[in-house]
């Protein structure tokens, strides 16, 4: 297969799988945060801070996948 076709497929796979991973990870964290706040509303400040930190950490890998997809995107022209 040509370079352009391979690059287009690679970019699409990278972004798709990255989005899947980010979605599942963020969903798990947010559901745990919401049930923690529901049990003990006084802990809302601490739990929300921890949730933002966790989202930032989890999203690091999928965002690296998106950067790789952008690098491949430039080679789509062949």
């Amino acid at each position, binding site marked *: 297969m040509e370079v352009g076709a391979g690059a287009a497929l690679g970019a699409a796979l990278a972004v798709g799988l990255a989005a899947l991973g980010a979605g599942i990870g963020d969903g798990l964290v947010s559901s745990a945060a919401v049930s923690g706040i529901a049990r003990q509303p006084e802990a809302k400040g601490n739990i929300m801070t921890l949730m*933002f*930190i966790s*989202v*930032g*950490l989890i*999203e*690091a890998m999928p*965002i*690296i996948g*998106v*950067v790789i997809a*952008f690098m491949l*995107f*430039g080679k789509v*022209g062949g």
Partner: protein
Amino acid sequence: MLSLEHVEEQLNIWGWPHNGSWELLVGNTHLQFNPKTLIMTWITMAVVIIFVVAATRGMSLRKPKGAQNIVEMIWEFIRGLVNDNMDPKKGAALLSIVVTYFIFILFSNLIGLVPTLSSPTADYNTNLGLALCTFLLIYIFGIRYKGLRYFKHYITPFVFFLPITIIEDLSKPITLTFRLYGNIYAGEVLLAVLLGLLGGWLHVFGGFVTSVIWLAFSIFVGCIQAFIFTMLSIVYVSQAVSEEH
């Protein structure tokens, strides 16, 4: 629908050299400079210095006014984070540099959203520099508070954990760099792609509304990434100085 190179050429108002790096030959080594990142870093430094100096000029203790409140809020917020994670006496030496990280990374992420400018943190060199400063800080604080006993933590509790702890130590600056680089650079490229999305009128109608929505989200992402870089630096240093058990 315009391609990415076409969009970036049309957006290039300041005339940055295309795919730019200046080559310089010093002695026998080849040096490369990226003029866009250098000039944007100087502009960001000027903005940070002017903001902080103007906000704290003629400070008053009883009746703070205007921008002095913002600097005080940032200082107290970061001081709360440092005191939550480590002993406040040990953390007092760390406080200045993490406040500098926070203000610099926040301003440089937000300056990239101004229409014709770009972020200095959208280049992996800037982020690698900041992450290497954190990497050095971990060792400096560890050796200062624990002497050479600090290196024993690589082989406790079992000697064969050594490869794992070495990889853990090397992964700290690498993940810090690429997390910040990926978030900010991908945001900027997506902004350019969205502008070229709906037809040829780049200046007026092409994907304008979607890029405005993405700009709003990028403000949020910039603030969160500055907070996360700072928070992780504090956590890594606090792991190095903690006396456990």
